[in-house]
């Protein structure tokens, strides 16, 4: 039986104000463990908003997000921070590395924040992660000494630091050249193949096609789900 890593139930995100605006409008979604899901859609369709809700960066107006079967809507902000720290890894369009720190220190940041490992153990894991992403020789360089693709790979290494169940990535290749884009997507694919769940927002249909499942969002709702099965794309239009 397939284990669900991430589930959204009737998820709504509304911005209240003089004029209310609904970013995410009643989305039901379940992502299996080890699955690679791509969320696509036009600008302003609510795909990033959905991603932030799934990664507990934002709180829903209605509905529930369950991570590894655990509901999160009643968690305090501190508890949500703990879940993010231990169960989610984030990769953004921009690397958001701390500029004064080396690549290795940036990767160590979530581990140090969690404080569950000894310093030597953390450094060993940090170097191993950087090495696995082809950045071993850049471990002691600061972000400004790295290329865009290298910075994004450091950001991925940082996201993987605490061995999270889920990696959420918001247009991780949006600011990269073609070669770097290919490299980053291959890494994310490998991560999923190794059993971690990956949810990625992308504008690139070619890259989305390499995901196990593509969820197309329009006006805050799921418009289409495309699954890749037996080497062929199977399209399912949501009602």
């Amino acid at each position, binding site marked *: 039986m397939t284990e669900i890593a991430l589930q959204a139930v009737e998820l709504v995100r509304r911005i209240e104000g003089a004029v209310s605006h609904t970013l995410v409008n009643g989305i039901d979604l379940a992502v299996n463990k080890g699955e690679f899901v791509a969320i696509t859609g036009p600008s302003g369709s609510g795909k990033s908003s959905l991603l932030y809700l799934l990664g507990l960066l*934002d709180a829903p107006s209605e509905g529930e997000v369950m991570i590894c079967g655990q509901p999160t809507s009643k968690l305090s902000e*501190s508890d949500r*921070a703990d879940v*993010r*720290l231990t169960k989610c890894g984030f990769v953004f369009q921009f690397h958001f590395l701390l500029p*004064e720190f080396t690549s290795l220190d940036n990767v160590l940041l979530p581990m140090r924040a969690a*404080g569950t490992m000894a310093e030597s153990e953390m450094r060993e894991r940090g170097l191993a992660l950087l090495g696995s992403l082809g950045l071993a020789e850049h471990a002691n360089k600061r972000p400004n000494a790295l290329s865009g693709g290298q910075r994004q790979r450091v950001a991925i290494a940082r996201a993987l630091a605490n061995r999270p169940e889920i990696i959420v990535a918001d247009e991780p290749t949006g600011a990269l050249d073609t070669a770097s884009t290919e490299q980053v997507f291959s890494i994310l694919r490998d991560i999923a193949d190794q059993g971690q769940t990956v949810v990625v927002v992308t504008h690139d249909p070619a890259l989305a096609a390499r995901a196990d499942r593509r969820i197309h969002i329009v006006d805050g709702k799921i418009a289409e789900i495309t699954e890749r099965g037996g080497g062929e794309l199977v399209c399912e239009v949501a009602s």
Partner: protein
Amino acid sequence: MNLIFNIAWTHVSTRVRQTLVGMAGVSMGVGFTIMMAGLMQGSQLDFLRQLVDTMPHITVEDERRSVPTQPAEQEYAAVQMSDIANVGKRPGIKYPESAMSSLRSWIPGDVAPSAKTTAIINHGGARIGITLSGIDPRREVQVSKLTSQMREGKLDDLSRAPNGIIMGEALAEKLGVKTGNTVLLIGGQGVQLNSTVAGLYRSGLKRVDESQIYSLMGPAQVMMGQSGVVNQLRLRLNDPMSAQKVAAQVEAQTGYKSVSWQEANADLLSSFTVRDFIVLTVMGAMLLTSSFATYNIISTITHEKRQDIAIMKSLGMREYAVRRIFIIEAAIIGVVGILFGWILGYLLCFGWSKITIFNPLTGSTVPLQIYYSLTHYLIAGGISLVCCAGAAYFPARKATSVHPVEIIRGAS
């Protein structure tokens, strides 16, 4: 190294110029506060020391603190009497020798008698009102610093010169007299006495030096027209600060009005309290102002680091942990600034203590009195640290309370 401290240290160490400016601000505030406190307290203590050295710590007068009740008033509640003349009341303290013996048995210090009266000095056409205190030189040395204040002659010279007197240098200058000259003293009863200036003293308090003269008991009693009278007991205590307490005990024992030096100078001391308050306010303002530099730096850093704050929060660092980074940054600036401020404060105090100024009260050039106290350093450092932490808290709280999504979206 702890993650929070590591990030904080990285922030301040990569902004050398800003950090140094902040530290300099704190150092200046702390340094000048210490200097000001040392200077103010030094001058105050010096003044009090002169005051305490010049006058007896407790003076027992031959009067009551309140008018004694009349027998009729004690007998009948309805009787109230006023404007009662003490007809036939002989001035002076009764049995002064036995009173002094009794006091010597328990007070932590010594006691000496004196006959105090007012008189006019008439010399060369000048007539100046003065206070004449008849003293016993052998006992006076136990209760006053007059011996060490003598600039010409000795206390013993009082008994060598005919009707010898000792006067302040300021009064002698005013009258144009020198040691060995004769002046005419005129008492309240019209008694006139030719007195020889046997010596000159300088207490450091001009009002004393210009109005207080000393003689032996005999001449003073002659001026009062009361031979053998002792109308004042002068007490000197080992601990001048206990004067108020001891004065109350003396008054309870003798029944005579006993005035401590604090009570005699209550107006002056209350003006010190006002001065202390003003000084503390100014020092607090200096320290607060110096922390504005820290506020400015932390505000700048939190503004520059909005993305870092957002990413740290999105990675799972709690809001208070992120806020603590900036508090620690302010603490680093504050602690280093305070350490340099302590050094600066000491150097300023040392430098000021080498400066001499002309004191118009004493007519002499004296060094600025500085009081060195560890308390000044600790208080200035403590207040400065609190100000720095406060200066960092508000911009840090504002910056860390922003939702990370807002910043991440803004950057995308």
